[in-house]
């Protein structure tokens, strides 16, 4: 579905080539999968998401969406097929939640076209799906962190794309909201068939909702594949330098990771 082949990207310019944030990254997000993207801070997760969304252009390598190179598609064509949920969204003006969600319709509207009844229906559906319909007329800036994140996810859903890229959507949320977002994502994945790539620091979230994982360290992919194959104690030690207990939790019904100590 969405594939990155030999992607390299560096923020450092000029002579200093040590600043490469991604090197020869090849990843695959199969159709219908909920793939997790794991790795320590600064390992290139956000850069990879921005490359896959076409926000950045790779210095080498190609991104393909349904076998078509991303660079052959217009911005609007990409936006109709890939939606992105950034880590945090801070609009400069006091938009309402509904207005934020309606902006997701942008790639479907012509230059002077105003959103019509169909777009409003899509937006309200998206709000209902994320459990935020009652917030529609509230000012986005007055919402709590969890409500904001769900409204931003609704905005991405209103884009009616097949692929959803999420950059640490639960990073600033408390435990309850983390669970809400997690169950929302797996529901969207199972019932609507939305293909997702989820960058996260939360190994237990990834273990609970992701069927596949991509593990990264220092701008390179260390491993990718089925969650149960990839998520092992030795890999956690490799990536984070942490000794952890990785075991199947009977009541949760998935792998759980319990950090024990810093590796020596």
């Amino acid at each position, binding site marked *: 579905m969405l594939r990155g082949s030999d992607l390299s990207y560096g923020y450092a310019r000029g002579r200093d080539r040590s600043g490469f944030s991604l090197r020869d990254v090849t990843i695959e997000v199969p159709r219908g999968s909920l793939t997790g993207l794991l790795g320590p801070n600064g390992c290139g997760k956000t850069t990879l998401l921005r490359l896959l969304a076409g926000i950045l252009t790779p210095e080498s390598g190609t991104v393909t969406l349904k076998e078509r190179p991303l660079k052959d598609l217009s911005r*609007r064509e990409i936006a*109709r097929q890939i939606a992105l949920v950034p880590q945090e969204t801070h*609009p400069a003006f006091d938009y309402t939640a509904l207005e934020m969600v309606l902006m997701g319709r942008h790639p479907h509207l012509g*230059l002077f076209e105003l*959103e019509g009844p169909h777009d409003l229906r899509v937006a309200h559906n998206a709000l209902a799906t994320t459990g935020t319909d009652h917030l529609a007329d509230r000012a986005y800036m007055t919402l709590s962190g969890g409500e904001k994140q769900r409204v931003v996810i609704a905005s991405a859903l209103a884009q009616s794309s097949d692929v959803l890229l999420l950059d640490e959507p639960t990073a600033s949320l408390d435990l309850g909201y983390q669970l809400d977002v997690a169950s929302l994502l797996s529901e969207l994945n199972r019932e609507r068939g939305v293909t997702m790539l989820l960058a996260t620091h939360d190994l237990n979230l990834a273990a609970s909702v992701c069927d596949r994982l991509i593990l990264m360290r220092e701008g390179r992919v260390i491993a990718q594949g089925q969650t149960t194959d990839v998520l092992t104690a030795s890999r956690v030690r490799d990536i984070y330098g942490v000794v952890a207990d990785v075991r199947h939790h009977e009541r949760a019904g998935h792998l759980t990771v319990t950090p024990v100590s810093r590796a020596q």
Partner: protein
Amino acid sequence: MNMVESTVSVGAPAIRPIRARLTLTVLGFGALTIVTCLLAPLVGSTSISLARVFDRSIPFSDNVDAQIFFIARMPRVLAGAVTGAALAAAGVVFQAMLRNPLATPFTLGVSAGASLGAMSAIVLGAAVSFGPIAVVPLASLLGAAIAAAIVYRLATLRDRAMSTTVLLLAGVTLNSFFSALILFLQYIANFAQVYRAMRWVMGDLDVGSFQPILAALPLIVIAFVLFALLPSSLNLLSVGTDAATARGVDVARAQRLSFVSASLATAAAVSLAGPIGFVGIVVPHLVRLLVGVDHRVVLPASALFGAAFLVACDVGARTLLAPLEIPVGVITALLGGPFFLWLLVRRG
């Protein structure tokens, strides 16, 4: 932080379908602007009647009221309308593209460049004359163009997309640099020149005839044609550049279009009437309080309300201390300064 925001934020107006809101807003503000522009010329030292002005039974050459209305007072009212619309719309565009509600049309140095240009023409160019061509507005346009070109070049030097940080820093630096040059020119100028330059900087809508308005109009029309392409991109730009790109906006293109069109409108307005402050920030914020923040509504509403606002301020400038005339820039500053401070405090 959420707690604080929720206590100071004002609830946004209830949402009607965008089409209805747009129609209602444009009709409402349009009517306000037309009424203001028709009533403003009636006010002045000689009182005239609107009925007599439009009385077709009296030939124009005999209709003193019509002559005062159209020849003596209308140019000034139209200059106010055109300048107010351009500055208010430019303010909206700059605020959205810089993601900064406190930006003004003058933040990026365009007006400082225009002032330096006008000043140079007044001080150095006194000997130069091109017959009927007005040197000061041309020089101020040139100054504005140079300032805009410098800021544009700096902000696009490293990347295709513009850096708002570089834009703001370059604008602030250019503003103080040009101010220093203006001070130097004032220092070497004679009293008459300094007086003329001071008056120019205060802003003056007394353009004398339709001629200067017609000269500035093409630039302003081009700017507004470009503005018409922008509103939905401005909504997304103000949410964030990544969010905008991910929703199909060509961010670099939208930023350039915003910068060029808003600079053009600002330069044309300043060359016509001098740097009249606060219109570009007071009007957009008042409009947002009334109609919400969607730029597809805010941009046309601000242009219309900006026209009405500046025309009304100029009526005040002509009448408050009559027969003495207050510079209109002083009126807008007296209204705008406290309003600006209130905005700062309100935002927390």
